[in-house]
């Protein structure tokens, strides 16, 4: 009898514990994650039009309205001007240094994450074509 009781308690503990398993989440979680993403996209759009991102007042949106002609779906790809296969963040840094006459960002800088999130969001729905020119 005692054994049965212990077993029942253990099962109950397991079933309670299952709420914390990695593959289970709620609508509230989904909503929160989406909000996190949307917030970063919004930050990226703000940086896209921020005259302080570089050093000469030029903003990304001047040449790339709605992040057009950034074609994130084609990266990584061979960038003939760099002579190697490059990631999109390397091209973002090229733009920061040259047309914006500013300083490059680390690949994992939250600002870089935001810029890439915005670029990719504006290109949503387009199929991945890594390497394409």
């Amino acid at each position: 009898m005692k054994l049965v009781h212990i077993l029942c308690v253990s099962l109950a503990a397991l079933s309670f514990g299952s709420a914390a398993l990695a593959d289970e989440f709620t609508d509230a979680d989904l909503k929160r994650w989406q909000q996190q993403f949307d917030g970063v996209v919004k930050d990226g759009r703000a940086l896209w039009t921020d005259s302080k991102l570089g050093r000469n007042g030029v903003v990304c949106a001047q040449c790339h309205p709605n992040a057009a002609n950034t074609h994130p779906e084609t990266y990584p790809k061979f960038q003939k001007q760099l002579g190697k296969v490059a990631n999109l963040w390397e091209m973002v840094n090229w733009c920061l240094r040259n047309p914006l006459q500013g300083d490059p960002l680390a690949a994992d800088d939250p600002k870089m994450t935001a810029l890439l999130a915005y670029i990719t969001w504006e290109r949503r729905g387009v199929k991945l074509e890594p390497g394409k020119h």
Partner: protein
Amino acid sequence: MSQTFDRRTFLRNAALGVSASTLPLTLVELAFAKPEDTFTFAYISDSHIQQIRGTEFVRNWDRGLIRAVAETNLLTPKPDFVVFGGDLAQLGGKPELDHGAGMLARLSGKVYHVMGEHDYYLDLGEYWSKLFGPQYYSFNHKGVHFVVLNSILTYDDWTLRRWPTAEQRMAEMAGLDNPNGSPFMVGDKQREWLQQDLAKVKKSTPVVVFSHSPLQKIYKGWNFWTEDAEQVQALLAPFDKVTVFYGHVHQIQYNQIGNISFTSAMATAWPWPYPQSYAQAEQLLPKLTVQMNRADPFFERDATGWQLIDINSGRARVNFNLYNNRTRTVAFDEKTGQPQDTAFQAADQRVPPQDHF
């Protein structure tokens, strides 16, 4: 009619200064029945001179205009005049307009100016008008009636009541993809003036119109658009031959609507993507237009090319010179009644960079 403009001389002279294949200007030739009525003019547009602070300006944009001015001055024979197609400044301030005017002052000969939104929305064109004169006007030159319109006006409510400061109004209109912007228009007052102006012109007289925005509706999201385009087109409809040149779009576009041939100019500052390269946009680029090759951002002046336009009996033959790419020729085709690229118009004749994505 044979091309009276001595292009080889021009190219040779131009090459003395810089590579002739990169000329960021638009050279226009109008050729008519009488040789003495044939003439050329140069067309430079969208320089976006941008102040950093004090006397410091964005070098890249400065270089585009300096180069266009230098090359225009090398033209042989000299063009009869130069048209500047608008957006001389980026944020409309006196230092930008003064700096731009200083560079343009080096042009030899008469310059006609077109108002751009970047010149206008800080002080509603006041300082620009002090420098360059009226915002819309017409003139006749060797048998052609020229009209210059200020096509970048918008609703009074937006212009006069929406924004707490002039600086914010300018900044809001300066963002091409800014959803807080407002559609361009010529407006009632100017259309009335245009109607009266054209009433004095014979219907057989070739009419050439300059506007900053396209007098056609291409993509509203980036203001490649004029709200009252149809009403302006209706005023131009009675004339046998009408050509509209516009800036603003920073790319090659051409189209035919009824009797009106449209051709855009490239910018001296930077090129813009075509609207269909924005995946979330409707695609309203004129189907006729074969896109220019994708710009190589590593060459500052790429896709800020020039055009040699020969208008023969009121119809245009346009030679687009592209940096590091083959020259393109878009000519009015009498059979189809529209401008067509002589090499790349058929879908199977296009080169890969013309398929933007």
